[in-house]
């Protein structure tokens, strides 16, 4: 088995990277895939609480890298899904405890056993970001339809271009269709015009995201929520399926995106 390494990053903090990782992971695992998430945000561990696994942590990624435990021992098995795992970040160490080559080594090992390795990148463009993209086969950039988030996304896309990484894909999170319609929020087509990378997901603003994080149960498991549906669709697109975008905005948004992305 050769698993694929997908890094979720953004530049700006608080745009929804951790939420995205947890939800895509749950969706892929629900589809029968073997999935491991790595929390790359050393010192600001968060993925554990979003996934509801905070009470089960014994070892973390720095323990693995420094040889205090085997990789398997640091992989926490999810409560609901037997083939979903989390390797937590260290909370009391700094980002320099892990290097890009450590990440490449770890991911190469995980590729043998897993279908998907999802890495939750910290905000910023420093060491933690470098670590999180070092082993990536695919990078997903999360942004919000908002000035500073789009600007920082562009900066990260530029850095990936300079590293000659494969072209990243874009997730526009926290879209508020009512504000877009009113002309008070950038639409997905605007964000695409500005950033010019393929759009792989559009996730609406949804208060269920916060309810789900309160419970420690990512909402992609729930059938009803729109954001959950949007995250499940991203997982399917990662698997190579052609899935139409949810109709959140004005009609035929999918057609416009497909045209812009050169698919039509």
């Amino acid at each position, binding site marked *: 088995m050769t698993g694929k390494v997908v890094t979720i990053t953004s530049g700006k903090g608080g745009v929804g990277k951790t939420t995205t990782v947890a939800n895509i992971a749950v969706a892929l695992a629900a589809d029968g895939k073997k999935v491991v998430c790595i929390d790359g945000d050393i010192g600001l561990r968060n993925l554990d609480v979003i996934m509801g696994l905070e009470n089960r942590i014994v070892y973390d990624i720095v323990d693995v890298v420094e040889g205090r435990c085997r990789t398997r021992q640091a992989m926490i098995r999810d409560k609901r899904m037997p083939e979903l795992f989390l390797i937590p970040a260290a909370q009391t160490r700094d980002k320099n405890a892990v290097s890009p080559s450590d990440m490449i080594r770890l991911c190469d090992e995980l590729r043998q056993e897993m279908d998907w390795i999802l890495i939750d990148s910290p905000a910023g463009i420093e060491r933690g970001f470098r670590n999180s993209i070092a082993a990536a086969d695919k990078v997903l950039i999360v942004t919000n339809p908002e*000035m500073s988030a789009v*600007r920082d996304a562009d900066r990260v896309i530029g850095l990936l271009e300079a590293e000659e990484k494969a072209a990243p894909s874009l997730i526009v999170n926290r879209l508020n269709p009512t504000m877009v319609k009113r*002309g008070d*929020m950038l639409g997905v087509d605007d964000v695409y015009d500005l950033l010019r990378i393929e759009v792989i997901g559009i996730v609406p603003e949804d208060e269920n995201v916060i309810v789900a994080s309160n419970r420690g149960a990512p909402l992609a498991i729930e059938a009803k929520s729109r954001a959950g549906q949007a995250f499940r669709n991203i997982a399917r697109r990662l698997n190579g399926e052609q899935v139409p975008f949810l109709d959140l905005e004005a009609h035929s948004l999918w057609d416009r995106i497909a045209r812009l992305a050169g698919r039509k």
Partner: protein
Amino acid sequence: MDFFDRLVGKKKSAKSAKERLQLVLIHDRTDLTPAVLEAMKDDIIAAISKHIDIDPDKVNIDVEHDGRAQRLVADIPLRVATRRRAS
């Protein structure tokens, strides 16, 4: 945007956001500030004016996009009179 804003012709905020971002991103990607662009324009006008007579006010220099790639495009109209005098 409410009725009053529309009455006084105030631009929708998403439109301002997009226009402002377009400019910000050009500078972020290329390190090209409006001041540098203006200085470059003056140099180009000076260089060309050594050889032919052009109207400095009609010269236009801009950054154009092709996907994520950007190119500097200069539009320098030649004077009809110049050509006539030369013949």
